[in-house]
């Protein structure tokens, strides 16, 4: 029997009766709690059951419901877009400066610096270890570190462990890090790993999904592009302005990882299926 069925210990809270209706109630609330379940069609909750639930409105369900009204870790994209676009409008229409894109870039730069610190902090202090120690070590052994990548246009990134794996590995093991070669990736000694970190971890942190592709633009390793087919916040209105803001974020991240970044530009690519396929082109200083 699960003691934490309704979010509190049985000894301290009221006694939980094992009625079938109440169990049903808890499954509903669990489906509320399960954030990964949002897109899962079969696990969705229909209004009928909510209404029934209200009709049965017992104190117990209220107590359990209160648990849901704590501070959340996500907000709606609607709110984000309203606020962001309103601020962009204010900057464009009120501030008497012709170089609006620079202001937006600077604001993005501030955001980028903070996000880099936040993500690093979170990865080094995970709330739960993802898997057991031995499994992690085994997994890391399977990866082979190849820094000299082939000079194709698209990088092959399947052989490199994701940053989350690296960090959880570090935090769960006391193995000498330098020997294992992991510390190299942590410091982003190669620019490719940083790019991958942005494409994967930072993008997931901000938008909940990976960016679709990384490309090398010229042979002398000075410019790269991150490509997003369907940029989450830059697809609805004013895509060009929002992209300038995102460029600022990328610049902030790159610079706070100790790389000298000359500029980050953006370009909307033509594509049949995606209206706003965007490329963020990072140019490094030589």
């Amino acid at each position: 029997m699960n003691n934490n069925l309704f979010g509190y210990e049985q000894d301290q809270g009221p006694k939980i009766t094992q009625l079938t209706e109440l169990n049903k109630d808890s499954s509903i609330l669990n489906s509320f709690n399960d954030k990964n379940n949002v897109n899962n069609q079969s696990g969705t909750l229909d209004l009928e059951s909510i209404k029934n639930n209200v009709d049965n409105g017992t104190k117990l369900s209220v107590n359990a419901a209160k648990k849901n009204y704590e501070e959340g870790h996500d907000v709606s994209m609607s709110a984000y877009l309203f606020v962001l676009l309103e601020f962009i409008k204010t900057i464009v229409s009120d501030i008497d400066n012709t170089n609006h894109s620079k202001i937006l870039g600077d604001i993005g730069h501030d955001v980028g610096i903070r996000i880099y610190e936040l993500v690093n902090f979170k990865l080094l202090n995970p709330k739960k270890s993802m898997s057991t120690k031995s499994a992690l070590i085994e997994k890391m052994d399977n990866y082979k570190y190849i820094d000299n990548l082939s000079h194709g246009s698209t990088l092959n990134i399947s052989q490199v462990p994701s940053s989350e794996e690296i960090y959880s590995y570090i935090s769960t093991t006391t193995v000498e890090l330098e020997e294992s070669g992991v510390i190299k990736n942590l410091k982003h000694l190669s620019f490719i790993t940083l790019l991958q970190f942005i494409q994967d971890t930072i993008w997931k942190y901000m938008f909940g999904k990976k960016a679709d592709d990384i490309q090398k633009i010229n042979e002398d390793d000075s410019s790269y592009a991150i490509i997003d087919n369907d940029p989450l916040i830059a697809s609805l209105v004013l895509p060009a302005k929002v992209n300038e803001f995102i460029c600022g974020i990328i610049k902030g991240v790159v610079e706070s990882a100790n790389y000298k970044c000359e500029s980050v530009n953006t370009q909307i690519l033509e594509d049949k299926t995606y209206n706003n396929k965007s490329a963020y082109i990072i140019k490094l200083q030589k």
Partner: protein
Amino acid sequence: MSSNISSEKTNESSTVSQVDPDYQKEIFLKQLGEHVYQQNMKKINAEFFNVTYGSFVRTLIDFYDSDADKCNEKLKAMGESIGSRLIDDFYSKVTNQIPRCSNLKDLGNTIAYVGFKMYINTVPRVIFDETNRTIKFRFESNANIFNKFVELPDDIKEKKLYYSNIVSGIIKAALAGIALNCDVEFISDTLLDDQYTDIQISNVTRIKDEVPMGQ
């Protein structure tokens, strides 16, 4: 065992009959808010939201040379611009499941449990003052989603900058969209070393002429 369950069931039903309809409506609103938020809204990281908002507000403060009054005014004006458009967004997303508000208390509950929940995924406590006819939304110390990570510098703190003043503008303009006139203002803010963040709605009146025919 079975008799035990059935006896408990009867107890259960007897308590159900005593539940106050207002109370039931409150629970319904809470669950509706949760439901709409989970089912209809795409989501984005809350911390990313905070950091973005903070950076823009900082730019605004720089632009107005740390003049807190002007910043408050500007934030409220921006909120009003958002609110006039947000009200349609709200109603199209709750898809007419929301019951009409029949009194002030309903209004407060609806804004808190559905409005705040739907957009910033936080639910404030609603304090309803019957004699003055005001509604207060109270966020406990760190629950206001805007305030996370933020600490105001001393000079701005003295001048009373309400950091998340955009919310008051949004509520005011959104209510104007459904023909309700009201004053919304910040009373206290945890960032100004107060115990709670309080937003107060007062003087709610109905603009009769602006009610669209048929509603």
